[in-house]
């Protein structure tokens, strides 16, 4: 078991004939992801890495039964691609594109909510259920099958954390990169709920960063609803206020959204927070041991 995706998940790639789309389709196919279709207007009938290409999402879904779409479309057109996926019958949209205008995302998320379609991203590295399915741009070789669920606002920081876990023989159930934009799809709360209900997840790693109050809200949710152990890390402990740290969402504005506030919120509800990335594996080990002794 896992959350959101597994080896049977049928995946469609929007923008499959583009440079990034075709390159990462190759990587996903090589990982074993069940890529069933690609979409690229005007390119129907072609194949990319032996994957058939369709003109529209609707046609691709009808022909292949794809339920998840991953988007490699330039940012100005990405929100429209999200809408096309939702309208075309896709159930989970993963948007990799970076730099999508916020107002476009507000429109898109409102439509998806109405349709009951889930979204991950935009500006995210995707998600993986190790050994089964990788959707996005994650380096598959660093992941290892196991029982730790992970969610993160940052891509490369996820890779660092995962490789630290894997090096310490701690495998992962599913890892989700939720993206660094101010308005995004699935967030901590929804994923915490999924991991809490996933029988194969025993502990959860939450990697946050400065900006907004999503981490504070997650802490409150953990206190009220999550029984599995959660450990956290917050990037940007030394970031100065008023400077946007790369991610559109990562900015400390008028004294709120700081790492200190987020760390305090987690520690107040019993979630240990690593000050250095390298501390994460030991915190996870301790959490797993505690849970194991409790269940005995």
């Amino acid at each position: 078991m896992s959350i959101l995706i597994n080896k049977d998940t049928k995946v469609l790639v929007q923008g499959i004939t583009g440079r990034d789309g075709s390159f990462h389709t190759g990587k996903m196919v090589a990982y074993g992801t069940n890529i069933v279709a690609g979409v690229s207007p005007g390119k129907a009938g072609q194949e990319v890495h032996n994957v058939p290409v369709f003109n529209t999402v609707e046609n691709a879904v009808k022909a292949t039964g794809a339920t998840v779409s991953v988007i490699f479309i330039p940012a100005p057109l990405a929100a429209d691609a999200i809408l096309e996926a939702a309208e075309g019958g896709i159930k989970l949209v993963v948007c990799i594109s970076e730099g999508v205008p916020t107002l476009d995302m507000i429109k898109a998320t409102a439509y998806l909510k109405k349709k009951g379609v889930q979204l991950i991203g935009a500006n995210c590295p995707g998600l993986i259920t190790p050994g089964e399915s990788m959707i996005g741009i994650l380096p598959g070789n660093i992941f290892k099958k196991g029982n730790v669920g992970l969610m993160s606002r940052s891509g490369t920081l996820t890779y660092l954390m995962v490789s630290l876990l894997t090096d310490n023989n701690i495998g992962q159930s599913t890892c989700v990169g939720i993206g660094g934009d101010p308005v995004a799809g699935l967030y901590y709360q929804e994923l915490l709920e999924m991991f809490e209900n996933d029988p194969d997840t025993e502990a959860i790693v939450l990697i946050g960063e400065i900006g907004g109050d999503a981490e504070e809200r997650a802490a409150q949710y953990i206190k009220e609803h999550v029984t599995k152990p959660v450990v956290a890390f917050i990037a940007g402990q030394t970031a100065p206020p008023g400077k946007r740290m790369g991610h559109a969402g990562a900015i400390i504005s008028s004294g709120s959204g700081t790492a200190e506030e987020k760390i305090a919120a987690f520690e107040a509800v019993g979630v240990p927070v690593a000050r250095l990335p390298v501390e994460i594996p030991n915190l996870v080990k301790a959490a797993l041991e505690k849970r194991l002794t409790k269940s005995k």
Partner: protein
Amino acid sequence: MKIHEYQARQIFRNYGIPVPEDKLCYTIAEVEQAAKELNRMVVVKAQVLVGGRGKAGGVKLAKTVTDAVAAGQKILGMDIKGYTVEKVLVADAVEIHKEFYVGLTIDRNTKSVLFMASAEGGVEIEEVAKTNPEAIHKIPIDPTLGMTDFIARKIAFKLFTDMAQVKQAADIFKKMYQIFIETDASIVEINPLATSDGGKIYALDGKMNFDDNALFRQAEIAAMNEPDEDEKKELKAKESGLSYIRLDGNIGCMVNGAGLAMATMDVVKHFGGSPANFLDIGGSSSPQKVVDAMNLLMSDKNVKVIMINIFGGITRCDDVAKGLVIALEQLKTDIPIVIRLSGTNAEEGLRIIADQNLPIVGSLSEAAQEAIKMVKNLAS
């Protein structure tokens, strides 16, 4: 992207929001001329892209032309939180009866544009938010509806009782929302919105920020950008596909990914070092990007040591290594470099830079400690 108050006031005017008359001045002579032309009580306001101008003494009332000139002399050239005041706005100081706060921003939680309104205007709204959060009405605007008449009226009724003022306010609120959507703003704020003689409502100040991701379709807005020296550097970096923010330390950091770059700064600080910058070279690196990044780091005279931390995903370590070799050849620098490469094609990358005699470390913590040691060695 941020714009100045005088620019925001002009946008408000273009959309028909009542704003008192004003003139932008760069010199004392211009201030004098403006005060004479307005020929009544004026307010002289520093135009800098930072909050808290009033508290810093950057806003002064002037009853006479002589007062206005005196205010201009004090404010022009003044330093406000590190920004030098190069221009002031001389504005008609209308009679103020009561002040309100109204603002639109992005709400991450409801994934919508949020309208905020408070009868506690004129002061720093952040203070009100902390001490008296109930005094701020927050209304998420449904993106499928937009700011309809009834929503604008509903908000106006929270602040005003006089029907003529409710109508004026509702009209202003609708226009603010229209501005927000049409300019791809991230903040549209009027503080204070004030009632004046005859019950007329004015925007006495204006603050607007914009979504950088949408500037490609907002040519007029993009043209209003007036970056300072540091921001010019950041913009230039952006053109090379780099995300750069200058800080005041001495360890130049080159990292791929925003989260990892922040964490790298944190680790450097944790071990007692001081990062000179945030620099994210982004995904899908080309060797040229690394050359540009090295140039950028070297252009900061405070940089004593360079620390490179790459976790290859889309970014390939061999690309980074190739770029580094080219950069070192071109730059012929004495600045010591410590490097950590892992992830995609790390082994190949390490082979490429093997001849460079660079200290190569295995972990982020080691890299930070090594860089700090190098800084200390240079000092001694």
